[in-house]
């Protein structure tokens, strides 16, 4: 009975994480289309929400990586996964409060790994899987997106640079409807699957699914897709209100190149099962499209933020995940620990949120 209560808490926490992921990342997905006037804000947000939902259904390779190649599903319990989730959400809240760079995806993986180490030691952590499927792709993906974005904009300017600007702008804006749609689809594919993977891991740990083979139940896919789509839609309206002050200066060809680069990298990585920070990949594509036009146009501060996020997020989220597991274990193996920790986490989150809003500070991205 206690196990089922913890499982319900884990599923709810994972879906909240998924919702906040969509809420937080909407800006990255729609900003380029809106800033080049390829799509109106309402259409961009609505389309992003729909395609995030659809994207969650087209692959389960990333979910398989999270459930099979990060930690040993047979050696852990739902409480461990819950502690990892709280670690990830806490780190996201802390970085949001202090304006530090962060990646929700890396926080999730770090939090789960930290809790697993605290619970059963390093033996249950798949070091090879984390290195080969998480760390190296995390470093490579934004670089590949940067290179594609830069080459793509050079190609686009070479072919269309001598034409009258009117038709070219209209053409690339039309192209952005497709590339922006692909980017939203890619975001839904990679990010919703991380939640699916965590929920599946919890179901295996609780004995609801066999630990041999890998199968994501349909209700997990539908609920994860719904949570990220709802988060995207809700976050989108907030973005629309602030878009006027956070506008990105780029032309429609750059917007198309950046979105195409981001979508290509995320979709290809999803196909091969690599869980990426979609925000970092999109930032890589945008910087590449900027550098292809003029190297000085690159906001190197953003690149520095990405590097800082690589070094900070995984260990910090792991440490918090470990502390969270330590705290829940004080109350034994039952549901008491997760219930108390949930209450404290909600209280802390609301306090930070209220303080941040009162100060009127912007919400950081990356």
């Amino acid at each position, binding site marked *: 009975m206690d196990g089922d209560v913890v499982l319900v808490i884990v599923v709810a926490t994972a879906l909240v994480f998924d919702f906040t992921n969509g809420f937080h990342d909407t800006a990255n997905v729609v900003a380029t289309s809106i800033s080049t006037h390829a799509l109106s804000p309402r259409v961009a947000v609505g389309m992003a929400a729909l395609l995030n939902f659809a994207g969650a259904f087209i692959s389960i390779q990333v979910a398989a990586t999270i459930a099979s190649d990060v930690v040993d599903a047979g050696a852990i319990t739902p409480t461990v996964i819950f502690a990892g989730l709280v670690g990830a959400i806490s780190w996201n809240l802390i970085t949001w409060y202090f304006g530090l760079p962060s990646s929700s995806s890396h926080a999730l993986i770090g939090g789960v790994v930290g809790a697993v180490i605290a619970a059963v030691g390093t033996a249950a952590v798949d070091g090879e899987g984390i290195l080969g499927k998480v760390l190296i792709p995390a470093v490579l993906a934004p670089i590949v997106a940067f290179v594609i974005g830069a080459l793509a904009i050079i190609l686009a300017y070479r072919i269309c640079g001598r034409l009258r600007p009117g038709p070219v702008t209209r053409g690339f804006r039309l192209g952005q409807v*497709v590339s922006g749609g692909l980017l939203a689809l890619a975001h839904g594919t990679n990010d919703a699957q991380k939640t699916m993977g965590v929920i599946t891991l919890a179901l295996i740990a609780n004995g609801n699914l066999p630990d041999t083979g890998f199968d994501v139940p349909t209700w997990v896919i539908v609920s994860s897709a719904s949570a990220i789509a709802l988060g995207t839609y809700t976050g989108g309206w907030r973005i629309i209100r602030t878009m006027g002050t956070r506008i990105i200066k780029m032309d429609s060809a750059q917007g198309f190149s950046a979105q195409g680069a981001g979508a290509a990298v995320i979709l290809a990585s999803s196909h091969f099962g690599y869980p990426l920070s979609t925000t970092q990949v999109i930032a890589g594509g945008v910087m590449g499209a900027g550098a292809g036009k003029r190297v000085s146009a690159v906001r190197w501060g953003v690149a520095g933020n990405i590097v800082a996020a690589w070094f900070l997020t995984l260990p910090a989220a792991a440490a918090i995940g470990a502390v969270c597991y330590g705290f829940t274990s004080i109350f034994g193996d039952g549901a008491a620990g997760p219930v108390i920790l949930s209450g404290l986490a909600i209280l802390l989150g609301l306090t930070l949120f209220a303080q941040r809003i009162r100060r009127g500070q912007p919400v950081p991205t990356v």
Partner: protein
Amino acid sequence: MSVAGLISVAPATLVDGEALLDTAVASVVAGLFVTLTASLAIYGFATAAEMRRLDRGLAAVGAGALALVSTLAFAGAIVLGLAVMIDG
């Protein structure tokens, strides 16, 4: 030795260099092909309109054909990419 081979040898068997290289190559090819076809389609449509305005019928037809073929290639690339994703 191939690039994939070098990646594989560096951290012994820890990293699947071939899969990483496949991902990078697939990303670059897809991203650049989509940009190339979209750019050629825009070039074709814009040039065809310009040629029609200048009463150069043959050039307009040629540019229109380029636009049509490029648009089909662009759409085909998107459909193929999605089909590969869905097939898993």
